[in-house]
């Protein structure tokens, strides 16, 4: 069993190494750290900060977009965290971690996570030993480290930074079928550097097209969670260096809650936004000639997913209405479509046979009804 487990571990490690595009080393002269290894800060006097500088290098083959640099463990503080930057092949960035032991003794204290677009997340253990002052070891339990060791002496608490009150702001206001910029704004300058995550939860309908858009060349879509960094003296969180991040609301009525928290779980801000049920949004109505008649294409969304009847009113090229509106009951089609769509988006095509000169039809006004009422749009 042991050799098999060992083999599995080796294989996993090899795979991780093979996929990893970046390398991490302590400056100025190493060592290099592979994911899963322990970064040991050595023995440090209790209460005295000790800072190490690390270099994160892109070994290729492509540009690396660093999306998250987060840390767990109260004895460690991330500083000069440059998350959100793109690193060209052969280039590197630097960041610092400060270890301040709150009590004497050695322990495995925390973790560092490095996240980059298209890369497996890399984890590193953080360790250090406090020397002097109160005797005995101290351990800060992490979620996965259970049960935690019992401290032999009461640790001396490290003065935690007092974070100013934060607010999650959406500009423009969140409505269905839009892209807004989400920012985290603080009422006072930040006391220290830091890093954390902004998480979006929802009540009501899910939506596969709802999520964050990273400011990288491909606009990487992230459904529910993005990393941010905090810089001492600033009053906003930064997403890949930007003071806000684009959020695509999707096309489903729901309440969205954005929560910003540090890597250690400390909540900095939380805000809920309600996207109310609305009439059908018609983004595009197209009229084109087809064999034996015309074809009408309607692209839009229904954030209630209750669409039912459509009405088509045709006009000639001099903008005179042709006959009466033609009603089409598509209730059954919508009810069959939405449960499999994952969003409120729909693309509808309706063909009409025409007797006479179809080329003389100039436009069509399309109206769609749902539980909130009717909306209409004239074809392009």
């Amino acid at each position, binding site marked *: 069993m042991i050799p098999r487990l060992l083999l599995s571990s080796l294989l996993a490690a090899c795979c991780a190494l093979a996929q990893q595009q970046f390398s991490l080393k302590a400056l100025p002269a190493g060592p290099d750290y592979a994911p899963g290894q322990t970064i040991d800060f050595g023995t440090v006097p209790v209460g005295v900060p000790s800072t190490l500088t690390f270099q994160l290098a892109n070994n290729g083959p492509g540009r690396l977009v660093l999306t998250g640099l987060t840390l767990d463990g109260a004895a460690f503080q991330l500083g000069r965290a440059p998350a959100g930057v793109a690193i060209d092949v052969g280039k590197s960035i630097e960041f610092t971690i400060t270890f301040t032991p709150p009590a004497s003794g050695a322990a495995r204290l925390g973790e560092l996570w490095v996240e980059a677009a*298209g890369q*497996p997340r890399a984890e590193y253990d953080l360790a250090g030993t406090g020397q002097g002052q109160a005797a005995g070891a101290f351990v800060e339990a992490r979620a996965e480290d259970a049960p935690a060791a019992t401290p032999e002496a009461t640790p001396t608490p490290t003065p935690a930074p007092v974070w100013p009150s934060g607010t999650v702001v959406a500009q423009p206001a969140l409505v269905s*079928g839009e*892209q807004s910029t989400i920012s985290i704004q603080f009422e006072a300058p930040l006391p220290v550097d830091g890093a954390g995550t902004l998480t979006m939860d929802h009540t009501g309908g899910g939506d596969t*097209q709802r*999520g964050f*858009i*990273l*400011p*990288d*060349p*491909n*606009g*990487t*879509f*992230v459904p529910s969670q993005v990393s941010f960094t905090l810089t001492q003296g600033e009053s906003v969180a930064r997403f890949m260096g930007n003071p806000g991040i*684009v959020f*695509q*609301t999707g*096309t489903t009525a729901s309440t969205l809650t954005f929560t910003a928290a540090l890597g250690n779980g400390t909540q900095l801000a939380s805000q809920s936004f309600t996207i109310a049920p609305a009439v059908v949004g018609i*983004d*595009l109505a*197209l*009229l084109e*000639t087809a064999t034996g*008649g015309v074809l009408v294409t309607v*692209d*839009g*969304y229904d954030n209630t997913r209750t669409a039912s009847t*459509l009405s088509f009113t*045709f*006009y*000639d*090229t*001099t903008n*005179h209405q042709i*006959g009466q509106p*033609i009603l*089409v009951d*598509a209730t059954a*089609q*919508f009810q069959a*479509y939405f449960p499999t769509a994952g*969003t409120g*988006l*729909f*693309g509808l*095509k309706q*063909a*009409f*046979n*025409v*007797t006479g*000169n179809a*080329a003389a*039809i*100039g*436009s069509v006004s399309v109206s769609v009804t749902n539980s909130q009422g009717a909306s209409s749009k004239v*074809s*392009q």
Partner: protein
Amino acid sequence: MTRRLAAFSFCLTAALAQPALDAPRAGCVRGTDGGLRPVHGITGALLAGAPATWSVVAAACSDSLALVKTDRSLEVRDGGLALLARWDAPAGAALFALPRTGQTGFVYYPGTGQLLQVGVQQAPRTVLDPDALHLMVMVADTSGPRLVRISTADGTIDSQAPLQDVAAPLALLSDGTIVFADGTGLVIRPPDAAVAGMALPKIRPAPPRQGIVTERRMALPAAAVSIDQMGGVWLAVRLADGSAPLALRLEGASQRTCRVPAMGTAQ
């Protein structure tokens, strides 16, 4: 009114035919990683899926067709990016012209100067369909930017008209509207007199909608580095700041824009 009703009477059985529903298709977008991704959605709710093919040098999509240039081949794909045909092609870039719908388009290879017609049913050919009338292209070389009307029967140039104050990257839309970069913005120029004079014969009367009548400028977060045909009604504008591509759709007298996010991939 009676006359109109007689001319446009609809067949009742057809009107009662049930509509077809699907995810709205917006076209395709080429990533900086060379992947060509199908794009679904509407303004403000677009999403590019997993790449259908890699190593793409240039591409253009319409509602029904995609022309894809890799280093040494030209591919014809359907609106869903399924491969229909692949042909040998000279190395390097390509420029495309695709109508919003239809099964043929045009490709121009700057490296060789070849202008070809290509379609689902036909190999690329320089002897063009004599029924296809003319092709209008924008040319920017040492003689300065100008609009050129080319006979698709024999490839000869019928006429030329100089274009004032335009700069690359740029795009010529099917109605003669020109979209081009200017600093950190885009200029949307309606068809002017020179363009109108060269316009193709009107086969079908224009719909009674209001188009762009005056030139207007649209601010961008950063300078545009490319303007590609993303779909039948969409342009994709890539910006110099390395951020997500911007989708642009002209609609009557206004324009709509949004970012085009892409599902993450691990190559």
